């Protein structure tokens, strides 16, 4: 969803063709490693945008080169973009894979939960190290946007690490408590607190 | 580097550094400046003692300055190697009413040189500027120095009036000699006969002068053989009669000034110790850091010691300079007063190399010693202190050891009180003061609790009391500085009161005469009291309304190396008119026994110095060699209570000391005779004796009281000198207290304490601490002065102890005043505090 709207935003800034769009997006997120988007995914999204009448298509002939398709935003596209921009963004922190692993580990005891924890920590530290050291190489006078993005990533990992510390300190207590179980009376969908908009 | 660091640290705490340095300055000023005065005083005494004729090969005189037979000069005439010999009678004449006064100078005393006309012309290497030398057959003529002419305006050929032992007499100036080479008494030369008449010393001389022939190879050998020939008591060289006594006084002055200086410096030491202790505690982190950077323990020790040394050096330099300037400025002010008292001029102040050395040794030594402790503590600070977070906690120091030690000492001190042994008592008093110092921290807690319970106080006071309790040791240290100074104040005033009240009581008890006729210089034994022969005595006896009188004579005396004053009394009349207060011996028989043979009564001071007792034989150096006297009593009279003195009969003082002159008369009125009439006729009979004045007993008593007050004033002066450093210490400690709590005070300010409340809090802290010091100081001071009076009593000067009420009041006032003064700066600091900055610190 957000990739779709971001592409729409990039097109709104300046009409462009698919390849240009891909490069611009990757630059925006600071590289493929940060937000892996495949080129075919870009084209699928563009098609969907076209179908929904959010962008329009025109062909431009380049001098001496092959013909390229240039995309331009429509007025309904602009409206959608504005709606998106003027609304707050929900965070996405509940769906944590490590949490699930840990709970299952505690339930199954296939592996040592501490080992799991340390492995996770080690991985997070490596990621953090990479981002932070990378950050040192950036020029804050030219690449501030990117720096901020990296900062966000780094801060999230930091938060995760702190959370891991907390888990480590209380791991024994958690394992002594029963696992969260569905309440007997309640049936149906599990409760999701926020961020339930799903992309389908 | 260590030097740079030390300097920076000192400069970083300018106010504190200035305060501590000031305390060193003070001590050095006292040691250096006051002792610098001694040579000036000494030279003043020397002037009046040294015969100023230079170029004489021989001056032979008696050690005691007493006269001897003029016939003895003849014994030397045929001596081999002697070319010329001449007898001289030299003495100082006090002019009294007949002083020569001009616009800008007065001459109150002159030195009379009676010379033999013929031989003296050859013997004395002086030539007249105008007129002529004395010729045989001359009578009532004098030669004076040109400086005398300059000062008085008299001219050659004029007549001057001089008092003599037989009334006043006119002398014609027949010659003028060159200006005197040294400052001192003006010299007047006259015939030996005239001089002997003037001093009532028929056939007596005080010195033999002479010149050796050129053939003499070793003059020293010749002088020694002459001295040996004349025997015990004679001295060759300059006249040094009585010099020993003055020397002893001067030496004593030296010791007193040095002791006071040391006490002041000691106070300075305590101040420095406190300051550095705090400074080291504050710098824990810095020092720890230096250690982590690789500073060795030795380096840290050095830094702190150098800081102390720098302060010592600066303090000593300033002290020396200030002492020097102070003295230079003081001499012109003191000199006129001095001249009035002693008729000699103060010499130049001079600072011997020893004095500089002493000032430097103490001025540097005491700071270093007092810094040593804190420096060693600094040395022990571990590198880790730099990193450890500083936790400001309540100081739960334990003072148990100190308390126990203090109580033990206090018990010991109390026991000494029961012994009745003055020396023990005195050391006990010192112990007691020390014990109070030890106990003081332990008293803080109970005291603050007591105050809180008994008085309902405003909140600032409660906070202040809390602060005091938390910093028991610091508060106690501050209180101790107050304690010491109050102890000094109270004990000084205690002694002063005791002396004044005691002496007056004593005087009233021991003096039974209505009038006293005595020379201007009231101290017996001071030179220049020409005295008067028995003629005056007879004259007074004949005065209408006089019932009886007693005459007193005086001479310097020596027993072995011990110098003292010899008083000649007429036992019968003395007993009735004045009388000694006997400590030992039988009062009833003692006076009668004094008349028979060589018997002597000595006073307590002499008994103590020579450790003599009743029945002992004292061998005295007399005019004709050694004479043995038996001690038959120990007693004192008021006039001579403090100096070692002995009493013998008139006969004996004539025989052994050639003393025929009376220096003082005590007179009783007949019953029914009118006071005014008697006084008038007495004055009339004294007209020819200008050096004597008549005083009624009451007048004289007032005079004594005044003198006593002057003495006390000196004590007060010294007291003030000691009290000022303690103010510095108090201010210093208090401000440390505030500086250390900067953050805490800022917190209080932040949570809503007003400046006014801060002011109140600090002020009340200061007051409580200083009052506690005052209370303890009063206890110590009374104890000290009591034991000091007992100690005085042992020296034969018995006084009852009087409670120094005035001292208590003054101490309380001083305590409050100092408390307020000392709080001023810390208050300023605390109220001007930038709250945000103070809290943000670290």
């Amino acid at each position: 969803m957000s990739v779709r709207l971001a592409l729409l935003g990039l097109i709104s800034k300046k009409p462009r063709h698919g390849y240009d769009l891909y490069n611009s997006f990757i630059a925006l997120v600071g590289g493929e490693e940060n937000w892996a988007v495949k080129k075919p995914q870009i084209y699928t999204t563009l098609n969907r945008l076209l179908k929904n009448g959010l962008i329009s298509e025109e062909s431009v002939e380049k001098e001496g080169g092959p013909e390229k398709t240039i995309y331009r935003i429509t007025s309904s596209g602009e409206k959608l973009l504005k709606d998106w921009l003027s609304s707050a963004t929900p965070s996405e922190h509940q769906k944590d894979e490590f949490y699930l692993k840990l709970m299952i580990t505690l339930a199954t005891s296939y592996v040592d939960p501490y080992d799991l924890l340390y492995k996770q920590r080690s991985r997070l530290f490596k990621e953090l190290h990479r981002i932070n050291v990378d950050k040192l190489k950036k020029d804050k006078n030219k690449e501030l946007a990117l720096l901020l993005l990296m900062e966000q990533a780094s801060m999230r990992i930091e938060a995760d690490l702190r959370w891991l510390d907390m888990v480590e300190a209380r791991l024994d207590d958690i394992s002594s408590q029963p696992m969260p179980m569905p309440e007997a009376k309640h049936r149906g969908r599990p409760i999701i607190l926020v961020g339930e908009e799903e992309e389908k | 580097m260590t030097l740079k660091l030390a300097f920076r640290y000192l400069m970083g705490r300018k106010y504190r550094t200035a305060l501590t340095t000031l305390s060193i300055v003070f001590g050095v000023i006292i040691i250096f400046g006051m002792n610098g005065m001694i040579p000036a005083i000494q030279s003043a005494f020397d002037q009046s003692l040294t015969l100023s004729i230079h170029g004489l090969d021989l001056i032979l005189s008696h050690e005691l300055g007493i006269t001897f037979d003029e016939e003895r000069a003849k014994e030397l005439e045929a001596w081999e190697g002697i070319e010329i010999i001449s007898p001289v009678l030299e003495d100082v004449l006090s002019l009294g009413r007949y002083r020569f006064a001009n616009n800008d100078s007065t001459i109150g005393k002159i030195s009379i040189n009676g010379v033999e006309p013929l031989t003296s012309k050859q013997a004395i290497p002086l030539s007249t500027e105008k007129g002529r030398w004395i010729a045989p057959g001359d009578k009532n003529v004098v030669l004076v120095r040109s400086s005398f002419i300059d000062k008085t305006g008299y001219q050659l050929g004029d007549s001057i009036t001089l008092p003599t032992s037989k009334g006043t007499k006119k002398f014609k100036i027949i010659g003028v000699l060159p200006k005197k080479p040294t400052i001192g008494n003006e010299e007047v030369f006259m015939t030996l006969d005239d001089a002997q008449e003037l001093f009532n010393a028929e056939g007596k001389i005080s010195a033999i002068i002479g010149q050796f022939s050129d053939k003499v190879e070793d003059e020293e050998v010749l002088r020694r053989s002459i001295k040996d020939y004349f025997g015990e008591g004679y001295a060759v060289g300059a006249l040094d009669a009585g010099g020993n006594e003055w020397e002893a006084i001067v030496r004593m002055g030296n010791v007193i000034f040095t002791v006071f200086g040391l006490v002041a410096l000691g106070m300075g030491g305590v101040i420095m110790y406190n300051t550095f202790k705090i400074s080291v505690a504050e710098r824990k982190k810095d020092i720890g850091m230096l250690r982590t950077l690789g500073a060795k323990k030795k380096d840290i020790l050095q830094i702190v010691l150098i800081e102390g040394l720098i302060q010592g050096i600066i303090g000593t330099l300033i002290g020396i300079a200030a002492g020097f300037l102070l003295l230079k400025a003081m001499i012109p002010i003191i000199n006129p007063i001095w001249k009035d008292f002693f008729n000699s001029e103060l010499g130049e102040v001079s600072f011997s190399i020893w004095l500089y050395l002493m000032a430097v040794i103490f001025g540097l030594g005491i700071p270093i010693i007092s810094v040593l402790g804190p420096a060693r503590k600094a040395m022990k600070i571990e590198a880790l202190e730099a990193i450890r977070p500083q936790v400001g906690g309540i100081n739960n120091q334990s003072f148990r050891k100190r308390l126990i030690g203090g109580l033990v000492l206090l018990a010991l001190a109390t026991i000494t009180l029961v012994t009745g042994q003055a020396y023990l008592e005195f050391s006990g008093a010192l112990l007691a003061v020390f014990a109070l110092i030890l106990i003081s921290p332990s008293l803080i807690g109970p005291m603050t609790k007591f105050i809180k319970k008994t008085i309902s106080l405003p909140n600032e006071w409660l906070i202040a009391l809390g602060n005091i309790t938390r910093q028991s040791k610091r508060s106690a240290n501050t209180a101790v500085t107050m304690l010491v100074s109050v102890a000094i104040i109270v004990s000084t005033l205690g002694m002063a009161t005791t002396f004044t009240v005691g002496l007056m009581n004593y005087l009233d008890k021991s003096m039974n005469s209505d009038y006293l006729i005595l020379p201007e210089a009231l101290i017996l034994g001071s030179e220049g009291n020409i005295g008067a022969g028995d003629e005056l005595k007879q004259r007074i006896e004949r005065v209408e309304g006089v019932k009886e009188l007693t005459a007193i004579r005086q001479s310097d005396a020596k027993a072995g190396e011990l110098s003292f004053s010899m008083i000649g009394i007429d036992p019968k009349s003395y007993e009735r008119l004045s009388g000694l207060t006997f400590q030992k011996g039988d009062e009833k028989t003692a006076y009668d026994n004094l008349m028979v043979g060589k018997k002597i009564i000595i006073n307590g001071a002499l008994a103590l110095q020579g450790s003599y007792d009743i029945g002992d034989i004292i061998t005295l150096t007399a005019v004709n060699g050694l004479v043995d006297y038996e001690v038959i009593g120990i007693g004192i009279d008021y006039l001579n209570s403090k100096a070692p003195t002995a009493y013998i009969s008139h006969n004996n003082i004539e025989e052994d000391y050639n003393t025929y002159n009376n220096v003082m008369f005590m007179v009783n009125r007949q019953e029914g005779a009118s006071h005014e009439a008697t006084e008038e006729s007495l004055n009339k009979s004294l007209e020819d004796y200008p050096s004597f004045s008549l005083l009624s007993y009451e007048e004289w008593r007032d005079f004594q009281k005044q003198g006593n007050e002057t003495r006390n004033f000196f004590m007060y002066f010294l007291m003030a000198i000691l009290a000022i450093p303690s103010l510095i210490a108090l201010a210093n400690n208090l401000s440390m207290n505030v500086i250390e709590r900067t953050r805490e005070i800022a917190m209080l300010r932040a949570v809503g304490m007003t400046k006014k409340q801060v002011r109140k809090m600090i002020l009340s802290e200061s007051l409580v601490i200083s009052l506690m010091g005052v209370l303890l100081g009063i206890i110590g001071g009374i104890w000290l002065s009591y034991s000091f009076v007992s100690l005085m009593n042992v020296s034969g000067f018995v006084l009852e102890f009087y409670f120094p009420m005035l001292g208590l009041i003054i101490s309380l006032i001083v305590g409050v005043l100092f408390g307020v003064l000392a709080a001023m700066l810390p208050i300023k600091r605390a109220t001007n505090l930038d709250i945000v900055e103070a809290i943000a610190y670290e």
Partner: protein
Amino acid sequence: MIKVKDLKKIYGSGESKVTALNGVSLSIEEGEFVAIMGPSGCGKSTFLHLLGGLQKPTRGEIGLRGRSLSKLNDDEITLVRRKEIGFIFQFFNLIPILNAVENVAMPLILDGMKTKEANIKAKEWLEKVGLGNRFKHLPNQLSGGQQQRVAIARALVHNPAFILADEPTGNLDTRSAEEIAGLLRDVCGKWGKTIVMVTHDPRMSSYANRIVHLKDGAIISENRLI
């Protein structure tokens, strides 16, 4: 190389006995940048103090370039610190009465170098840490980050092989902390020092090349980050 073997440190005795370190063994190669992490009370500060010879271990061995610290007396350890170790602390611990140059020059001067020479070196290092324009400033005239830079210059000026840092950014804002972190990476990467840094801040330790986790006085895990 630092080689630590079975290091134990016990504070107090009897009832109030606290075991700060309970048998830690670790070796650190020269040129490494190691972060020691752990919750407060895990013994990480004690570990650093022992490494720097600021405290003596109750038991165990610390080998610094083949020399055993436990066999040295106070003065000898002081000399080791003076020559081979540079310290960086949380509260910078600059001497407040000395300016930047003088603070930095201090280790050299303590080692007997002439003041003039020492000041030249100090200035060089201040320039390297980016304080070329703050020579004469007193610590209280500098920002926290600048003070820590001075402290780093001071830790490096005598060319020690090892830098021991105790929460070097604990008292700094994020921005300054980042700069200090970058500087520390330079210290290790550019100037080839071995850094042992104690911190509880994951961000700070992520700049290291290796992280050692302590818990209750023992190593629980070690991560190489590259």
